[in-house]
């Protein structure tokens, strides 16, 4: 008996080691692919990587900028995790960030010249952002639930609508006095900005909001009946329904929750980073959040570190055009390749396990 137990234990540790090895392998493959691209482009790979590292963690300013980028990523990725749990591919998260930013801007424009206290205006603006994101997500959710439109198509369509809406607002009704420009709407007065740490662009308030969101989502998914039912819905909609879970209602709630978090990300970008509405207000953080979600599957505990890593890549690569005359989209290549290889390796592992008969039910 003891012998058997030991063997079972051995087996599991071996499997665990294999898993870790595979993940590292995926990272190496992603680096190899990126290196090949760098070499093909005639750039020195090592110095490019060094620049990214230096740009991200080489200075206090650099690292604080990483944290600035971390916040919307945290919010978007934790939102995406809620919809992932419910088995939904909320690709519309990008548009939800944008519409959150739009609603925040609208509310602030309405209130900036009133006698209301700035703190109250900011709080209302943040809530408006959440409402905006939730509304935009609700559209995709309703289309999915009642219209039979796949959330991927609905979400993608709504992303374009949100982007077009922003442009129209910036060049139309909300244009700067004189002439509208790509630089965005008229900046809000300083008193309506979330306070930042002296000398840096980082606001402790937005950082707090991002971390709080991750913690809440983690608890929601791992410790509550709501999270369990959401996961059940995602893992097997039919079985969950038969076991008594109101599945479509849970799906809609997941959309709303994700939308609210994404909208908050948009609101933070307006109130703490840009202080106005700009055409690319989301900076692609929604798509990046989706990639993070894919990378970590359902494991909420991994949101924070992976989002930090992605933020560091993004900020670090800003150095590239300046120093090496490379385009900063290199970070995107690395991120994309990483997700691709991790997903690929995971798929290969599952296949291997099925073939080896280690995973029951695969036969």
């Amino acid at each position, binding site marked *: 008996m003891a012998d058997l137990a030991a063997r079972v234990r051995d087996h599991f540790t071996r499997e665990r080691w294999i898993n870790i090895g595979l993940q590292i392998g995926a990272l190496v493959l992603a680096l190899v692919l990126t290196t090949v691209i760098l070499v093909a482009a005639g750039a020195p790979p090592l110095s490019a990587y060094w620049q990214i590292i230096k740009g991200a963690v080489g200075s206090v300013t650099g690292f604080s900028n990483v944290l600035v980028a971390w916040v919307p990523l945290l919010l978007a990725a934790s939102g995406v995790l809620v919809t992932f749990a419910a088995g939904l591919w909320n690709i519309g998260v990008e548009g939800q960030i944008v519409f959150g930013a739009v609603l925040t801007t609208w509310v602030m424009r309405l209130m900036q010249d009133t006698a209301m206290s700035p703190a109250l205006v900011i709080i209302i603006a943040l809530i408006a952002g959440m409402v905006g994101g939730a509304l935009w997500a609700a559209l995709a959710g309703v289309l999915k639930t009642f219209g039979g439109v796949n959330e991927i198509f609905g979400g993608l369509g709504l992303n374009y609508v949100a982007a077009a809406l922003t442009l129209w607002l910036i060049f139309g009704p909300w244009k700067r006095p004189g002439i509208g420009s790509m630089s965005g709407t008229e900046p809000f007065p300083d008193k309506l900005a979330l306070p930042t740490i002296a000398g840096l662009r980082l606001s402790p308030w937005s950082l707090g909001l991002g971390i709080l969101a991750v913690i809440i989502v983690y608890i929601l998914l791992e410790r509550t009946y709501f999270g369990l039912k959401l996961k*059940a819905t995602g893992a*097997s909609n039919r*079985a969950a329904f038969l076991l008594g879970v109101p599945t479509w209602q849970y799906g809609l709630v997941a959309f709303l929750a994700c939308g609210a978090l994404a909208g908050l990300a948009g609101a933070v970008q307006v109130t703490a980073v840009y202080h106005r509405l700009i055409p690319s207000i989301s900076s692609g953080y929604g798509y990046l959040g989706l990639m993070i979600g894919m990378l970590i599957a359902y494991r909420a505990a991994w949101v924070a570190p992976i989002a930090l890593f992605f933020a560091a890549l993004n900020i670090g690569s800003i150095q590239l055009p300046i120093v090496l005359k490379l385009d900063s989209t290199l970070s995107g290549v690395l991120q994309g390749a990483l997700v691709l290889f991790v997903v690929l390796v995971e798929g290969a592992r599952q296949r291997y396990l099925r073939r080896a008969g280690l995973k029951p*039910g695969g036969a």
Partner: protein
Amino acid sequence: MEVQVKQIRKHFGPVKANDGITLSVPAGAIVGILGENGAGKSTLMKILSGFQPADSGEILLDGKAVTLRSPADAIRHGVGMLHQDPLDFPPMRVVDNLLIGAPGRLIPRRGDAAQAVADLAGPLGLTLDLKAEVGSLTVGERQQLELLRLLWLGARVLILDEPTTGISATQREQLFGTLRRLAEQGKTVLFVSHKLEEVQELCTRVAVLRQGRLIGEALPPFRVDKLVSMMFEREVTPGERLSCATGDTLFRLTDVSAEQGRIKLDPFSMDIHRGETIGLAGMEGSGQAVFLRSCAGLVATTGGRIQLEDVDLTGKNYHHFKKKGVAYVPAARLEEGLIPGLSITEHVLLTQHKPGFFIDRESGRKLAQQRIGDYNIKGTPASPVESLSGGNQQRTLLALVRPGAKVMLLEQPTRGLDIESVIYLWTKLKERCNDGGSIVFTSSDLDELLRYSDRILVFFAGKVSGPLDAKTTTVDQLGYLIGGRDISGTGIFDETDPVQEGGLDG
């Protein structure tokens, strides 16, 4: 074309779906392939049509051994199969459906195909609008399309799987006429059916399968009693009958009718009593599953009333039924019943009656441990459900039905379970009956139906026979009814309506 199979074997895990089948069919024959659910008919036909390879054995066409690697390969050898659900592309036009399976050219020649198919269709008495969209055709017309497609591709052996389900009487006559003409041309037809009437009417010979073996063959005139006993005969295992039925009505159906897919259920009334077990018999797809799901609120009824005690459940949704005490346990354990990836504990938590907001893992684990003990499940609270054996999955499903459930609707609760699990499961189920609950279950095992039911309903093409008193019914009588044969006059229907001659209007 002459078709021979020799010693065909196909195993799925421990299940011997085909256990050494040897069968020879001469050219120009229409052979009825008979057998109850799980007898191995479908497996054999899938092997013959290239859908799946046999584990061992030989297929000979006109005396030549062939290997059929895929359905496309099979049709190249002249074997085509008409599936119960036609394999076509509803949004596309008829002519394009014809071209899809055809050996490819880069640019399809619609004109040639249309002409060739029209030439084929004429002599067979079939007319098909080639420009119509497939989605707009009736099931019967889609069958004709598929038939013509197979013939056009050169099929000389045609396999038809339950082709008369869901088509009109006229279309059925037309289909039979076509098949006879094809047989006259020397084509071979394999006709899989459980409708004895049709087999009698159409086939020139019959092969009966049971438990993966060829039990026997017959030539006309067919004796139905002989066929039925060949299909269903088995060693009788008399066991003690457990009954806790009372005369007290718990679940009342009044003129309930329903429709799902191709199956239409005729209006039916019945009072189910407290503690009673009702068995639903019938070939798969005869309406028993639709009946069960209508009782669960999963399929909307098209007429009639459903009442549980004094509560009218008519028109309510599944979750409402569930709340009021109607529990439904689906047949597909891992697809519909349980959630792969979640543990037993998580399932127990998921089905808790009044959960709070936060999960108390420890009490969940204790509760799961208790259910595991109660239902003798071989697994731990943390075991993911997909790691359990079939029998233990079924026990888990049962353990999840909350104790207060009044009516339990079970779809094939013992399918694929070993005998020990079956007995254990029924012990647990009868405990619930003892507590005043009622059970309605479907099964393809006639012994199980006779032993555990108090009353039995037999389904054939959406029509219900019975209820029969399980104590006085025999396997043969059930076999007749399942095959759609009238058994009025045998004395068991004296108190109820005579059974209708089924199947003629599908």
